[in-house]
């Protein structure tokens, strides 16, 4: 299949209909390219060939008898390994869950399977989704398809790289502080963090429950719109999934964005933003202006406090969520488990990597007696101020546009030794995570070294349609090429 790596959901639907290929052939091709490159790329942690061929065969049989098929019929799909897939290993890229086989599927996984998607494998990521470079995987790092000596970003680095390298046209990832948008930016794909509660978190292994999201990766904006449409909606298994109807984003997609007001926050173009990245984003904003958008200067005055607030809230929630790994029920147990207390302490010390341990310790500290008010409560108050910043900005504008990351993909190992510097790089993505609004990274050109740069489009709660329309019109106007 000579054009497999360029396929989209639409061209797959077309090709299946015209019998240019079968769903089985697509799955085989996806598995073949991914497998052939995995020893050097590190993109996948496991493949599920048997299941993929079975699911693809079911799509082919339906098509053969003219039965109705779903929006994702036959589309090879990669799923981040923090998302539960019944009967398949779900390791969270952690030694702790090295042999864990999921006993149920996430609601989002059930939804894409019901729509006909064919899951081919589980993608590598930072351990328990904690990291911005994929270097915290307990197994092996992922290499950026655009530059193999560089990181793909994180934590959903494997899902971003799977799509960027053309192994699958779409993938599911998770975003807590930027873990979809930042790797999408580093790898040159589209990546979407939907509004908090838009997609059920049931079956997403919990890291920070008030910040975790499942969301799509794809090469085109339309494909992300289709994928989000398939997974969005209320789920009784997640009390924080929103009671708001999910529209058909792809069907409603339109390229006319004339008259939309696009906010540019001055705080996102301050010190620390690499000049070359800033120039590409400025050019992207000009492109939106040429499409008829009205560009409006806005201010998000509490931006500089976001990283501090975020790392208190996410570590506190992580320390609580990760208490479940006790060596008794589904995680690995240490050989040194003479007593119950030894079993807990040694299993956890041996199972968790350094970054996860660091966050559990920090989170336990900020929740401990005497510190709760000074840290956790304070951080939640600052979170309220950041949410208020966005609420006032969205009174004036329909969307906010800026960079995703201060710099393009860095070299593997370059920042690994300094956790605080790594956290500070999340500045532009963390604010939207705290406010719970929607965000997307779209490619907007490359650096002089050929590294992809992503532009971030943010919209208010449940306004994904506006975000997709802007991204789609930007793409149609050639914006992805800078």
């Amino acid at each position, binding site marked *: 299949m000579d054009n497999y790596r360029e396929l989209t959901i639409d061209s797959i639907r077309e090709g299946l209909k015209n019998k240019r290929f079968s769903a089985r052939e697509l799955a085989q091709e996806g598995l073949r390219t991914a497998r052939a490159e995995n020893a050097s790329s590190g993109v996948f942690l496991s493949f599920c060939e048997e299941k993929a061929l079975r699911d693809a065969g079911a799509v082919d049989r339906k098509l053969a008898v003219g039965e109705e098929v779903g929006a994702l019929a036959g589309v090879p799909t990669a799923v981040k390994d923090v998302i539960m897939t019944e009967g398949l290993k779900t390791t969270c890229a952690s030694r702790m869950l090295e042999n864990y086989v999921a006993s149920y599927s996430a609601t989002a996984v059930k939804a894409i399977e019901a729509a006909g998607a064919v899951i081919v494998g589980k993608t590598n990521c930072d351990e328990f989704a904690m990291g911005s470079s994929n270097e915290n995987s307990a197994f092996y790092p992922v290499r950026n398809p655009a530059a193999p000596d560089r990181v793909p970003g994180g934590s959903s680095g494997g899902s971003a790289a799977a799509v960027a390298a053309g192994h699958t046209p779409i993938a599911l990832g998770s975003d807590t502080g930027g873990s979809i948008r930042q790797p999408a930016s580093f790898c040159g794909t589209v990546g979407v963090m939907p509004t908090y509660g838009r997609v059920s978190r049931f079956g997403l292994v919990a890291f920070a429950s008030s910040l975790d999201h499942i969301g799509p990766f794809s090469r085109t904006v339309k494909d992300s719109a289709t994928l989000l449409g398939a997974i969005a909606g209320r789920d009784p298994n997640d009390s924080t999934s929103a009671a708001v109807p999910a529209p058909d984003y792809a069907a409603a997609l339109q390229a006319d964005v004339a008259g939309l007001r696009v906010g540019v926050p001055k705080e996102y173009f301050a010190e620390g933003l690499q000049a070359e990245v800033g120039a590409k984003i400025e050019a992207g904003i000009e492109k939106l202006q040429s499409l008829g958008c009205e560009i409006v200067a806005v201010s998000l005055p509490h931006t500089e406090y976001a990283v501090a607030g975020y790392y208190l809230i996410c570590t506190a929630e992580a320390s609580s969520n990760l208490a479940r790994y006790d060596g008794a029920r589904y995680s690995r147990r240490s050989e040194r488990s003479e007593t119950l207390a030894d079993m807990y302490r040694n299993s956890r010390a041996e199972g968790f990597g350094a970054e996860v341990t660091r966050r559990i310790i920090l989170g336990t500290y900020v929740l401990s007696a005497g510190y709760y008010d000074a840290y956790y409560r304070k951080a939640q108050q600052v979170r309220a101020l950041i949410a208020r910043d966005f609420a006032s900005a969205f009174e004036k504008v329909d969307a906010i546009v800026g960079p995703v990351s201060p710099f393009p993909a860095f070299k593997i190992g370059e920042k690994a030794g300094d*956790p*605080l510097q790594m956290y500070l790089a999340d500045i532009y993505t963390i604010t939207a995570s705290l406010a719970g609004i929607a965000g997307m990274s779209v490619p907007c050109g490359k650096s002089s070294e050929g590294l992809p740069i992503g532009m971030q489009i943010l919209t208010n709660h449940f306004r994904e349609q506006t975000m997709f329309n802007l991204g789609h019109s930007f793409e149609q106007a050639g914006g992805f090429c800078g």
Partner: protein
Amino acid sequence: MKITEKEVRYIAGLANLSLSDDDIRRYAADMEQILEYVDKLNELDTSTVEPMVQVLSAAGGADTLREDALGASYAADKALQSAPLSGAGHFKVPRVIER
């Protein structure tokens, strides 16, 4: 703010993590650096700000309470399938009570 190794050891105990002395030293240094940075939140007067404990209440869509009805649940063998040690339909752990 000075974070002592003793404090990290105490916190590691609360979190059920047995750490080596090297680890304790490393995490004490990391914590100190991170908490020093986090101190910048104290530049903000938040005495009148309600903490944001819930995302959807501001956004709408939080009306998600349902009937407390009994639903389907796992069979024991499924819940036990990834247990490191199990038997007779239970998780097995080291002896807790001496006979």
